[in-house]
């Protein structure tokens, strides 16, 4: 039986608490992994491992870190993602809420945008597949 949205949130919250050493109440749906929870690049490896274990899913690197799009000159101009690039990002990460990012799509800001809610929706999309 597929887990409920609440159950997914609980397990994602647990994985983030374990990986980042933060408290339960800091892991709110709107909290950003990098800005609010202090995740660094070394932590993403840990988060991926814990989510794969918790949900028995595989998380290919490019699904959470679209570096290939962000470093492609076809999709980036003057440090900002182009309209074409945004289309690619949305295709790659349909579960992510890119609204805020779209307002000022600077490549350097991309890493900061992922929220806990985005991770929950990502896991749900993998479970539904």
């Amino acid at each position, binding site marked *: 039986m597929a887990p409920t949205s609440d159950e997914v949130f609980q397990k994602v919250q647990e994985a983030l608490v374990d990986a980042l050493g933060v408290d339960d109440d800091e892991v709110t749906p709107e909290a950003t992994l990098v800005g609010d929870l202090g995740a660094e690049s070394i932590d993403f*490896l840990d988060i991926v*491992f814990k989510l794969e274990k918790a949900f028995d899913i595989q998380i290919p*690197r490019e699904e959470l870190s679209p570096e290939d799009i962000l470093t492609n000159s076809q999709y980036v101009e003057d440090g900002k993602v182009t309209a074409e690039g945004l289309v690619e990002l949305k295709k790659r990460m349909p579960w992510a809420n890119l609204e805020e990012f779209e307002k000022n799509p600077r490549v350097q800001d991309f890493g900061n945008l992922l929220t806990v809610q985005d991770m929950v929706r990502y896991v749900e999309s993998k479970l539904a597949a």
Partner: protein
Amino acid sequence: MRWLWLDRFTEFQSGSHATGVKNVALDEEALDGYCPAYTFLPPTLIIEGIAQLGGVLVSEHFDFEKRVVLAKVGKAVYHALGRPGDQLRYAVRIDSLQENGAFCSATSHCDGALQAEVDLMFAFLDPSRFGEESLFNPGDLLGMLRLMNFFEVAVDAEGRPLAISENL
């Protein structure tokens, strides 16, 4: 003081698991005055011994080409101290191998009783940040592994004696 916190490999299966022993000796520098008149092995050195065992396990899987460093200790739980005369038996297994790092979980036993449990995360040094240079000179790591009985026990995934890697 050398930085070898594992005395001997007792088992090693490529890509899977390994075991080793660490003898706690009274004349070790690390124990000298650690707790006056009641000394014991600094608990963090148990993590190091396990990390050396796990680090070789992970590194060997990639034919010693990747530079493997300890990135995180998710959790280390201790149930007893390592006292002079104790022999700690470490057992490590690989839980996950990824492009940028690996995860291992391990136990330490003393006289058959669980002494510690450790979860480790290793990272592979990124060439763009740290260049391509190896951490060791040719032969350095080979020497350390020989000292620790590695080639006497190491087998590949099929159980055949492990060949000595060109990269050592």
